[in-house]
């Protein structure tokens, strides 16, 4: 149920998802929705947590466990094509984090986890450069997802990711 809610929020945004939508898609009674989660926000926090644990964490695992930096980079930069785990995070960062401190904390934690995974893939001269590259790489992953979601051909997104992975691996 929390998973379906995550999919709904990832597709329609928080504001764009009504309790009617949730009741219709989750097959749950309105009263028990309120009883279980307290509010739409309560359900949203549970859905975001679920998505970070079940969609994003495995992606981070795949990046970290790649056979080498190039494989890890390809894994990270291929993620924007499918979008698994990234859409709700993107929307949470843009829509809810600015006005909800609890969401902001969860988003910051997710970005930090992505940074740690991508940071392990880059070669850098010092810690400052490594952390800068990690942040930039996470931003590239999210930015490419934004391009894919707004209609860019997946081949183009794929190519952009592959080109960046290739270039970063050479340095």
């Amino acid at each position: 149920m929390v998973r379906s809610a995550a999919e709904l929020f990832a597709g329609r945004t928080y504001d764009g998802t009504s309790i009617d939508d949730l009741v219709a898609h989750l097959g749950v009674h309105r009263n028990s929705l309120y009883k279980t989660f307290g509010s739409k926000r309560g359900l949203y926090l549970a859905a975001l947590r679920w998505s970070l644990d079940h969609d994003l964490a495995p992606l981070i695992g795949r990046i970290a466990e790649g056979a080498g930096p190039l494989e890890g980079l390809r894994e990270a930069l291929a993620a924007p094509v499918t979008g698994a785990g990234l859409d709700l995070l993107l929307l949470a960062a843009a829509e809810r984090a600015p006005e909800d401190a609890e969401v902001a904390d969860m988003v910051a934690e997710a970005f930090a986890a992505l940074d740690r995974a991508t940071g392990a893939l880059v070669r850098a001269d010092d810690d400052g450069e490594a952390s800068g590259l990690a942040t930039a790489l996470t931003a590239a992953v999210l930015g490419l997802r934004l391009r894919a979601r707004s209609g860019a051909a997946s081949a183009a997104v794929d190519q952009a990711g592959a080109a960046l992975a290739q270039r970063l691996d050479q340095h």
Partner: protein
Amino acid sequence: MANVSIDGDNLIVEIEGLDKLWALKSRLVIPLANVRGATADPGISREAKGLRAPGTHFPGVITAGTFHIDGERVFWDVHDATKAVVIELADERYARLVVEVSDPRATVALIERATAVS
């Protein structure tokens, strides 16, 4: 229509005008610790409301007073469904309040700020 405000550690729900008569209640004071959340929910008025006791229910015109549904007690004061806000409670006489407010979005934000884990 209800006026929702925060006073110290309490949520105050004041029933305005003639609704006091229909709802048989003029003021509810709920400790913020017992407020689980608030949601703007224009669709809730189409749901079954359960058994009214006591209060007033002219379907389509006003729902006010105490209703019993699924073993829970719910307080209603709604004329205009588009402005309904659901306030979920814990350890209170009412499981939830469904009240009409002038600005649902502002009321939800007010309650979320007041109950935010700091």
